[in-house]
């Protein structure tokens, strides 16, 4: 404990210097602004701003880049709430209820609770990293291909079990998502699958392209064909900040979301994407009246947003303690560290304690700044919705195109969002929900690759999934959930998770 206090005071000594405070602020501000632009995610931003940090000392540079990362994460939720465009897998669920809240004139409340939930989750996650970072590292190593596959099975069963009424449609959408995730070059053999010989499909479909088309572009098309309702978002502004009732409804989801997100964030191989989905599922399961979900339930924003931010924070653990990046943004942070002459690895903690603890302390500082930056901005974002839709939608479209082009610099990606937009529009018209499809898409690839990996290592023996205790446990939970779903009496009480 004494160690923790002295380490943290060392960290805050570094993080609270005028220069590092300024850099954290700058990073958070740039991150927020960039994150708000649809499609322009933290990866493109950090890659672009990397050269600017050359002149800084490594700690300052990393503090700024980390600020961009969580700033962009937060900004992405703003776009999801305001215009229904989730820039990243983790903000898909925020769009579900967040955008409905915006349509009901509660955009300010949604943005406010997202900011406050994120701040709380960030604070807890920072403490978790500081106190338990090193011991938790072993958790990352417990999760091999076998465990990962079972975790993904459980994730998919969550989605199936909790989708009611349209269960057939939900399952169909999940399967389409899984199918889409198999497009591209096969990882084990190098063969191309379902690419029709088209070179731009050889690396598969980008998540951002799919999400932006299915959600964002489709939403624009739907708004344009409902001439009478398309201005619904700007009718009433309502309160800007959450009130006491909102807090009462939200504090438990925030606590639960923080816990789920923090736990999943530590896993290697981007386990953090499951966090918001799991938090949403849990909130809906626990709610007294689950029908509110998908129609603007504040818990549906508070829980997943907290999970999202907690996961974003704890995904630094494998990077800081092992030097192994769990996702693409962290891989970029590895690059940033190497360019500054710090080779990420298990020695960073002992060799560069000021950098290590300074970064951890700056995470909390950054979260505080996000709150300070974002609460006043809420009013501005909400006013943005007053802009007439005929002026707003061309701007959204343009930013979508620029944003998606900035990810891979591929013109075909821009055409693809138009294609998926059309698909998404048709899905809306036929009453299919896009969220299960995105979940299937995200989990599908991880599931397939880990299944094959596990089977190759076990030389084809399926027993490996039962022999390993963690994997067996996860599968047992999945089976129990499935059995519950199949019992007719209980099925009546089953509710919808992913409805609009």
């Amino acid at each position, binding site marked *: 404990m004494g160690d923790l206090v002295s380490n943290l005071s060392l960290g805050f000594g570094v993080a609270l210097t005028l220069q590092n405070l300024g850099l954290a602020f700058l990073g958070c501000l740039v991150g927020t602004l960039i994150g708000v632009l649809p499609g322009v995610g933290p990866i493109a931003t950090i890659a672009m701003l990397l*050269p600017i940090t050359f002149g800084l000392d490594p700690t300052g540079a990393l503090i700024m880049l980390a600020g961009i990362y969580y700033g962009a994460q937060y900004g992405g939720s703003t776009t999801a709430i305001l215009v229904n465009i989730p820039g990243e897998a983790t903000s898909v669920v925020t769009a579900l209820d967040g955008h409905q809240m915006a349509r009901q004139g509660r955009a300010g409340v949604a943005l406010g609770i997202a900011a406050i939930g994120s701040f709380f989750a960030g604070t807890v996650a920072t403490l978790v990293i500081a106190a338990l970072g090193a011991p938790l590292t072993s958790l990352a190593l417990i999760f091999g291909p076998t465990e990962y596959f079972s975790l993904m099975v459980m994730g998919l069963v969550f989605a199936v079990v909790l989708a009611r009424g349209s269960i057939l449609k939900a399952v169909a959408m999940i399967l389409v998502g899984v199918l889409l995730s198999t497009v591209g070059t096969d990882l084990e053999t*190098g063969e191309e699958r379902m690419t029709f010989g088209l070179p731009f499909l050889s690396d598969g479909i980008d998540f951002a392209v799919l999400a932006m088309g299915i959600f964002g572009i489709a939403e624009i098309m739907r708004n344009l064909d409902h001439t009478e309702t398309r201005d619904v978002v700007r009718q009433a502004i309502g309160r800007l900040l959450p009130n006491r009732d909102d807090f009462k409804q939200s504090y438990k989801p925030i606590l639960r979301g923080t816990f789920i997100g923090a736990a999943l964030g530590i896993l290697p191989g981007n386990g953090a994407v499951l966090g918001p989905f799991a938090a949403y599922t849990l909130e809906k399961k626990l709610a007294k009246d689950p029908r509110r979900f998908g129609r603007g339930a504040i818990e549906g924003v508070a829980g997943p947003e907290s999970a999202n931010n907690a996961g974003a924070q704890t995904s630094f653990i494998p990077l800081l303690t092992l030097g192994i990046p769990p996702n693409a943004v962290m891989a970029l942070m590895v690059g940033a560290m190497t360019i500054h002459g710090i080779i990420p*690895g298990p020695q960073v903690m002992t060799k560069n304690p000021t950098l290590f603890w300074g970064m951890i302390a700056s995470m909390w500082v950054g979260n505080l700044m996000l709150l300070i930056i974002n609460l006043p901005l809420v009013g501005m974002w909400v006013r943005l919705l007053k802009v007439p839709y005929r002026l707003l939608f061309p701007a959204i479209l343009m930013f979508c195109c620029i944003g998606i082009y900035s990810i891979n610099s591929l013109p075909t990606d821009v055409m693809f969002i138009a294609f998926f937009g059309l698909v998404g529009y048709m899905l809306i018209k036929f009453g299919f929900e896009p969220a299960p499809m995105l979940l299937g898409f995200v989990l599908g690839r991880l599931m397939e690759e880990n299944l094959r990996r596990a089977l190759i290592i076990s030389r084809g023996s399926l027993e490996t999934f039962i022999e390993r205790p963690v994997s067996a446990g996860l599968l047992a939970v999945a089976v129990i959930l499935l059995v519950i779903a199949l019992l007719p009496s209980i099925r009546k009480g089953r509710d919808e998770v992913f409805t609009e």
Partner: protein
Amino acid sequence: MKKVVLALAAVAGLAATGAQAQGYPTRPITMIVPFAAGGPTDVVARIVTDNMSRTLGQQIVIENVAGAGGTTGITRAAQSQPDGYTIMMGHMGTHGAAPALYPNLKYDPTKDFAPIGLAAGTPIVIVAKKDFPANDLKGFLDYLTKNADKVNMAHAGVGSVSHSTGIFFNSVVKAKPTMVAYRGTGPALNDLMANTVDFMTDQIVNVAPQIQGGNIKAFAIATPERSPVLPNVPTTKEAGLEGYEVSAWNAVFAPKGTPPDVVKKLSDALMKSLDDENTKKRLSELGGVIPSNTERTPEALQKLVESEVARWTPVLKAAGATAE
């Protein structure tokens, strides 16, 4: 917002092609790095161009165009205007292994480029999980032949450096371990550290910290000399393995048809950058090997590419490794 301004600036820049060689460069130069930002090639590119930009008086802007083992970005760079304003960072995979891995490759590494110069070599290290029942290369090779069906080799995906060099290793030592593919080096290392897979071959920059931290063990480094980053790791030759010397080199290329005086300017700037103390220090911290003066010339690079294509093609074809 900056992003938008930059994007617009880039569009404006594209419109103003057809620059003259005299006075080159008069506007920023784009360097296409065919891998995601943050990877070893990207890091080398950023370190080297930092100094080159100052010499040339114009910023070299890195554009990451990832995909298909780097061939997407190189194809695009090869087809761009040969005016010196689009150059690229190629590597062992894109300009050595690619013709064997991608039968439909749209460029010929030996013919479609104006070589600028070699930037850095990254040695390959043979590493294993820390519980592996052998402590030196000899014991390892012994185990490998006796337990061929038990051993798993990890790699970072078909077309990656660890995949090509791993296949090469297997062909040299005549072993057939089971190959387990990962999406990138990070997840592969993670499972190596967790003792889930047995061994792999990868670039020193990726594995050195884990070796130093005792999370994995190293059997040998595939270079003629030991690396200052890992002074205790013997070379393959020292450890008794002949014929396995391999490095994941990175080199700067321009599209074919780039004016010779432009190539000269770029090549001079690269050489100057490699002589810079700061560049040298940063590259060697990564375990990078800085090429000697004779290895840095465009002519030497052309020879290297030809010899690398000749070396990789039969090895990879024999293993049946294609990515298409």
